[in-house]
């Protein structure tokens, strides 16, 4: 994803077991915080096609 020009912080990978509730919470918080920090996405946002 980074290779194609998407900010690294917009994509996160994590192993979270169904028993790891607290890890899940931490991960979600981290993800939302880092994405919020980046602001609204400007890439890969599909606008309505130009009318030909």
């Amino acid at each position: 994803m980074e290779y194609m020009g998407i900010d690294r912080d917009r994509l996160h990978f994590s192993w979270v077991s169904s028993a790891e509730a607290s890890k899940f919470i931490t991960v979600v918080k981290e993800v939302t915080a880092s994405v919020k920090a980046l602001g609204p996405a400007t890439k890969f946002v599909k606008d309505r096609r130009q009318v030909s």
Partner: protein
Amino acid sequence: MIGYIDKIREVALKLLNEEKVDMVIGYRQGSLPMMTEPCFVKRPEDVETLIWDSNCRINLAAYLMDRKEKIGIIAKGCDSRNIINHLVENKIKREQLVIIGAPCKGMIDNKAIALQFGQDIDEYQETEDQITVKGGGTEKTFQKVDVLQENCAICNHRNPVVYDELAGDLVEEQTDIDRYEDIRKIEAMDIDEKWNFFEDMLSTCIRCYACRNACPLCYCPTCFVDESKPQWVGKSNDPNDTRTFHFLRAFHCAGRCTDCGACERACPMDIPVRLFTKKLGKDCLDLYGWEAGLDPEQRPPLDTFKPDDPNVGMK
């Protein structure tokens, strides 16, 4: 490499006469100079239509999927690696195949030659090392090494990996090549440069899917871009949809792509789509020491799990 054709015809004739195969898949002369057309030969008297030169670019493994016949097939290094992919992925059985290996010194880039020649080419001749084209009253001779297809110039598996017969002696493999210079250049760009680079590169894509259809790996009965329930990606030439198609196609080929170049050759707009697949090829090599299509006994890295797999970017 020029002399292979005698041996190819001899083997094809023998296979057909002895009914060892139902058909031989090879190349015949195209209607244009520097073009060949993949073809099949079923009758012994037709083996003379088979040819071999530096224009046998198309990956013949793309013609094998799910065939039921017994087949003789000509295989360059890349074709043979894709045949191994097919064997690993159960698209064809080894017993169905008689592989006529063609140790390869690279195929030439006909579009580049045409561009350099600057006018219509009427005639084409080649020797072991040289290409001569004629047209409009002039002629020009090229050194073959100067006009190789880019993927052939950086090829490190020129000899067939698997074969039953050989059309010629094995050739020396290239060792002093830098396969990933272009990829490193893109990797070094900053995030916006990368985005803009691919935006520009894909701007001429007409969504014809020639790259996919030429690819021996792309045999899904229904490609994800063609699914309607659910529909994963829009069908217009919207840049986001186009980009999605190219990225996802590359991911689907990760650890399987042999860099045969069929995709770029088929692209009517000459978009260097290998920049996607090669990146993943490079990652597979760096992370797993893996090159696709070398061993029919090994599963590809994205198809297996090992406890010591590197966890890139994993938290």
